[in-house]
């Protein structure tokens, strides 16, 4: 009876370990495609610039957003996505999510033209892990304790 119990324990544990091993190997091999976006630094480190459409994630650089004819005209806008290490210029024509603003984390999807230029056909806002009332955010900003630049990582 005890022997049987031990056998079942090994069988059950073995099933888990085998599955965990198989999944760990698969995920390691596929990590390039599981990752949802490249950061500008990761993109700069690639030996060959990808020709397929890619996603790029980072912060919208302060002061880089340019609307040629106003924010709601639906005209092409340009901005710079940065992760502190490298920068990529993005041009985009279409609707922007409400959270899109300078200093905000974004994920843009599109094709690279040239080493540092991306033509986006989709822009997503990335929300960070911080939740607080507006008054608290304002107070933090006032005291200069606002952590800038950690939203897109």
């Amino acid at each position, binding site marked *: 009876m005890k022997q049987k119990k031990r056998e079942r324990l090994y069988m*059950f544990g073995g099933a888990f370990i085998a*599955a965990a091993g198989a999944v760990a190997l698969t995920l390691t091999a596929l990590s390039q495609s599981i990752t*949802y976006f490249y950061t500008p630094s990761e993109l700069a480190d690639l030996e060959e610039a990808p020709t397929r459409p890619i996603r790029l994630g980072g912060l919208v650089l302060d002061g880089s957003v340019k609307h040629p004819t106003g924010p709601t005209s639906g005209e092409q806008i340009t901005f710079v996505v940065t992760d502190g290490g490298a920068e990529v210029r993005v041009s985009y024509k279409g609707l922007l*999510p409400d*959270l899109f603003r300078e200093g905000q984390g974004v994920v843009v999807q599109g094709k690279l033209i040239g080493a540092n230029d991306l033509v986006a056909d989709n822009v*997503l*806002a990335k929300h960070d892990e911080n*939740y607080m009332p507006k008054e608290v955010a304002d107070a933090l900003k006032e005291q200069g304790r606002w952590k800038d630049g950690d939203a897109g990582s």
Partner: protein
Amino acid sequence: MPAPQLSASTLTDMANTLSKSIYAYANPAVFEPVAERIFRLAFIAALVFAGFGLYFGLLNSPADYQQGDTVRIMYVHVPAAWMALFCYSAMAASSAAGFIWKHPLADVAAKETAPIGAAFTFLALFTGSIWGKPMWGAWWAWDARLTSVLILFFLYLGYMALWRAVADKTRAARLAAILAIVGFVNVPIIKFSVDWWNSLHQPASVLRADGPTIHPAMLTPLFLMIGAYMCAYIAMLMASMRNELAARRIARLEAEDHAKPANLVET
């Protein structure tokens, strides 16, 4: 004076008493009234927690500095996502108890946890989607967190389907237990998906090394709602375990009825 020595026989006695007390609940006559009492307590606690949680979450908590009132979706979404993981872990643990130690109630607990966990997972995916549209600008993204939770949902469905596909309950329990433990690999992947890969989903806000990044005024309703979900799970589990045990008893009685020779039934 020397301390009283624990002899080998007292230890064995203690172990026997312990295992007897655990196995005692395998007897439906013992389990029934206990489950009934737990059900009542958990049901009332769930209502109280949900009442306070929804009051604070929807009416008496601040709007977020970025998300505005959309942040209130969090009070429904985050507890659902946590319970999705908790239920799967509970399912895997009771599957182990059923598979290795053959505790008769463990298989029932695992089986009855699956639909509840699947419902929590669906709720997490659904509320996440209606949060994602206004915040991210997309209903869905194939990032690691969202995809692994979708896989969790399918694991629940597969587990439930397996129970239905195999007629013999003992065999179904064994096969389903193996599926549950193999699928358990997905649980840490979900938890750490936001750390291991770049993902659109935000990293952990509560269970993180440097403490929660959610303001206390928002943490209160969140924890109240987690209490509500947990109590609701316990109440639903007790109710559906009793149903399952009753259904099995009916099936057994009917089988005995059919087994009787025809002339005996007539007289």
